[in-house]
């Protein structure tokens, strides 16, 4: 896990924020990784993406101040759930942010049931994220064009696919 989340030991320490069903905060260390478990927010709050993002951003801000974090990265999950709090907290704290785009969110927002009522708002938030991120990583070349359609300069976008840790796979039986 450390190889994936702290590639080539680029950082002295990587803080990972994870939400779970436990109702208390906890911290666990795995080598250079520090896992902060945060209680999951109530379903009422989760229904409002802006509100839940503000709450998550506050958690990020606290960690940035407490540990002197130098970069906020949204590398997994949905752009609204993780990208929005990332860019908000980075702006509040005056540090750079890196957002990862891994889907065509316009199409996702217009097809996935949980987003259907908020398509317009979600598109605005997505645009806000791209405009405010210090840098954007695209996991596919096609998504680079998609991000550029939001008016983002090519110099602010890097295409870098996801790495597969093949050592976690066993050798396929057929080979």
């Amino acid at each position: 896990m450390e190889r994936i989340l702290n590639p080539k030991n680029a950082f002295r320490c990587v803080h990972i924020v994870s939400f779970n069903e436990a109702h208390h905060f906890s911290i666990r260390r795995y080598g250079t990784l520090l896992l902060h478990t945060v209680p999951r927010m109530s379903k009422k709050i989760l229904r409002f993406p802006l509100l839940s993002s503000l709450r998550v951003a506050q958690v990020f801000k606290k960690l940035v101040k407490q540990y002197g974090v130098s970069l906020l990265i949204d590398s997994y999950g949905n752009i609204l759930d993780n990208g929005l709090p990332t860019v908000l907290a980075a702006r509040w704290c005056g540090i750079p942010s890196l957002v990862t785009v891994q889907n065509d969110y316009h199409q996702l927002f217009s097809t996935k049931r949980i987003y259907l009522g908020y398509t317009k708002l979600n598109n605005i938030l997505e645009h806000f994220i791209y405009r405010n991120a210090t840098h954007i990583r695209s996991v596919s070349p096609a998504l680079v064009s998609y991000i550029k359609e939001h008016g983002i300069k090519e110099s602010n976008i890097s295409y870098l696919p996801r790495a597969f840790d093949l050592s976690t796979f066993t050798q396929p039986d057929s080979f």
Partner: protein
Amino acid sequence: MTIALSVAKMSPQKNLKRLLRAFAKASLHIPQLYLWMVGSGEQEKELHLLSIQLGVEKRIQFFSSIPQNELRCAYNLSDFLVFPSIFEGFPRAVVEALYYGLPVIGANIPGVLELVQNGFNGLLVDPKQIDDIAFSMVRLAIDKQLRMQLSRNAPCIVRKRFMGDAIWGLEAKLYQSVIEGHKIDVNKDSYK
């Protein structure tokens, strides 16, 4: 017996209703064709019902959520992956299947096009054309020679382009550049 595999969240993006319809058509021609569907999601119940309506429920095995080691078995035991998504970013299931030497019937959409080369490691289809998907399933089910040939080529692209070590190095470089506010050059000289 030929097993087609689908590994995908059961959401509209993954186009699984069309896959079921295509499978129903293909199975009329290939009585020994079976479909394993791995994944869960908002369309789970609808897909179960649709399989009953289409009369193919006995030839489809649904696996809601399975751990990585069992997923490995699914890749090893099946004959090809069917991945007819309407849109994609970077489809992990396709990369995993290719690594396991499974030919992929993939949608001709960005994201999949970067991984699947028609006639080399899989077959590309129009995801909105049920007949197109069905035809490719029949083709792979009956043509063992083609399946073997695609299967041999399948792992090449994964080993060549998505190995952890190379990309992790670039990730580290990207992070450092963002922190230092340098002009990022990952696009130019690092990853192609």
